[in-house]
């Protein structure tokens, strides 16, 4: 006995986003960049640290956005890739004595491999099953990191303390500020890479798979390859973000990378607008600052505030920040017209 499912009448797992709608124009991009460069010069060290975290989470959300918005696959397990990246950097720095900047590509490559391998079984899964498998991955990760066998390397439950790098070449800036610009440079490189990736042949293959897998394979796209590739790329970028996170926070511990982090990143993507890459930074700002405000109101409330806001976004602005951007664009267009 078998059930037949009509795939044509069935809604796609993720709403199709046209390629052009995925990025910002040059003018706006430059304005945002100038803003990101200028702001740290005006604020205190603690705020600079928060801005660094903002960029780091933005990169992680961007990675999820490539996977979901680009290739239409889910992941509730991004925290696992983030954790692997963070631990790779931390272990290389503390046990291997390797320069922090050099640990990032290693974290990226290791996570790419991990994601690519995890993508293999995930190939058989779609939609909700994939969400399930990655959900299980995210919940299992902290236990794997606490494992006695790796305790020498990972520091077990205690975690590892990472030393914060100084600014090189005797540059007259604080550690926080140097780290911010370092992160900004890497985030920018990753952003440009991602935009170009989605505009390339591979990017078009991702989107074809997202919109209709069977039609895509009929057009000659190697569905298996591109789906695992999307997983690998997404995991790799998340790994770099994780590595940066470890350097910025100066500490890695299993319980920093629970399912809550994965949920945050997922939420960031939904708030920022699925498939709209610049939205990642909006989503990241949301997941960094909203819990602070919620915790300020009452401890333990942040989960409820998160959930309620997520529902509001789903119902009122299903396209997230992209919808806001479209409205602004229309307004500017009208002003120019007059």
């Amino acid at each position: 006995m078998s059930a037949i499912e009509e795939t044509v009448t069935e809604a796609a797992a993720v709403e199709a986003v046209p390629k052009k709608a995925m990025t910002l124009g040059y003018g706006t991009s430059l304005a945002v960049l100038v803003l990101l460069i200028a702001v740290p010069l005006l604020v205190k060290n603690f705020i600079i640290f928060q801005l660094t975290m903002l960029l780091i989470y933005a990169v992680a959300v961007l990675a999820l956005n490539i996977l979901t918005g680009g290739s239409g696959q889910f992941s509730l397990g991004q925290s696992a890739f983030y954790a692997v990246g963070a631990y790779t950097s931390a272990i290389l720095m503390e046990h291997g004595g390797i320069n922090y900047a050099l640990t990032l590509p290693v974290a990226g490559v290791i996570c790419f491999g991990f994601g690519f391998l995890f993508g293999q079984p995930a190939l058989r899964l779609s939609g909700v099953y994939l969400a399930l498998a990655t959900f299980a991955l995210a919940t299992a990760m902290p236990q794997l990191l606490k494992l006695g066998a790796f305790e020498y390397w990972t520091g077990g439950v205690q975690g590892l303390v990472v030393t914060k790098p100084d600014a090189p070449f005797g540059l007259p800036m604080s550690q926080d500020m140097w780290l911010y610009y370092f992160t900004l440079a890497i985030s920018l490189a990753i952003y440009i890479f991602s935009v170009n990736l989605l505009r390339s042949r591979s990017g078009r293959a991702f989107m074809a798979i997202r919109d209709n897998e069977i039609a895509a394979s009929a057009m000659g796209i190697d569905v298996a390859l591109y789906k695992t590739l999307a997983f690998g790329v997404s995991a790799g970028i998340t790994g770099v973000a994780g590595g940066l996170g470890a350097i910025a926070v100066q500490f890695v511990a299993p319980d920093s990378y629970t399912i809550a982090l994965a949920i945050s990143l997922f939420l960031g993507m939904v708030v920022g607008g699925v498939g709209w890459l610049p939205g990642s930074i909006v989503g990241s700002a949301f997941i960094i600052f909203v819990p602070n405000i919620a915790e300020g109101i009452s401890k333990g409330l942040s989960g409820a505030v998160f959930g309620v806001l997520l529902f509001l976004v789903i119902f009122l602005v299903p396209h997230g920040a992209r919808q806001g951007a479209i409205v602004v664009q229309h307004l500017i267009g009208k002003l120019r017209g007059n």
Partner: protein
Amino acid sequence: MELFTNQVLAGISTGAIYACMALAVVMIYQAIDHLNFAQGEMAMFSTFISWQLMQWGVPYWGAFVLTLVLSFIGGIAIERLLFKPLAKAPILTNVAGFIALYSIVNSVAGLIWDFTIKQYPTPFGSYPFLGSQLISTHQAGMIGVTILLLIGLFFFFRFTRMGLAMRAAASLPESARLVGINTSWMIALGWGMAAAIGSIAGMMIAPVVFLEPNMMLGVLIYGFAAAVLGGLTSPLGAVIGGFLVGIMENLAGTYIPGAGNELKLPIALALIIVVLVVKPAGLLGRPIVKRV
């Protein structure tokens, strides 16, 4: 050999927990074709309600029945208010909705009842069952409840008009609507039943794992693993899957060195992935054929 049989017995008794949860998972999957990530949290919330009722002096079985009714109504209310408007939305939106619900329920429970661990009573007592040190009367009672539940569900789906209508609405919604079934309400009913079954699972599990807002996370993952193993479309499969998962967990803990409590969740993860790769339909599920 004695160690082996003992571990299998112990596995069956923990398996009853997973079987209960897996039944709730399968129930909702049948009704709406999605896995509800908030299922465990909903069950936890129901359990807290029953605990609160008992604190107010309601006797165990009174609280049990009241909680069942409240959970049933709560499940329907959640569907009507939050998920009915999302019925036509992409899967992503639905998953986001489940995640939101998960986060709200967990946080609100912590807010109302605090994150401290609470004792939860059992109606069966916790003496050795038939003189065996491995299965307590509570665990035996839990197995009994699970089997009763399964039989009840079987009769409901097989022999009642309502059960038939629900099955029709789940498998071919368009055609079901054409023959006059109110498919939208069937989905709401599915949510209600899943919430009620979840609450039974929660009330049976709470004496074992103790009551606290995060008590269901591990159980939910194992419930998912059990449901996937048994086949997401088959209640019987879910129960068998639950017992098998319990046995596997215990055997792995005994015979694989280093795989004690600290590898609990990774084992479930490995199991889910292996089943999904080797036999995606599960033991008793039916395969789904896609047609363009």
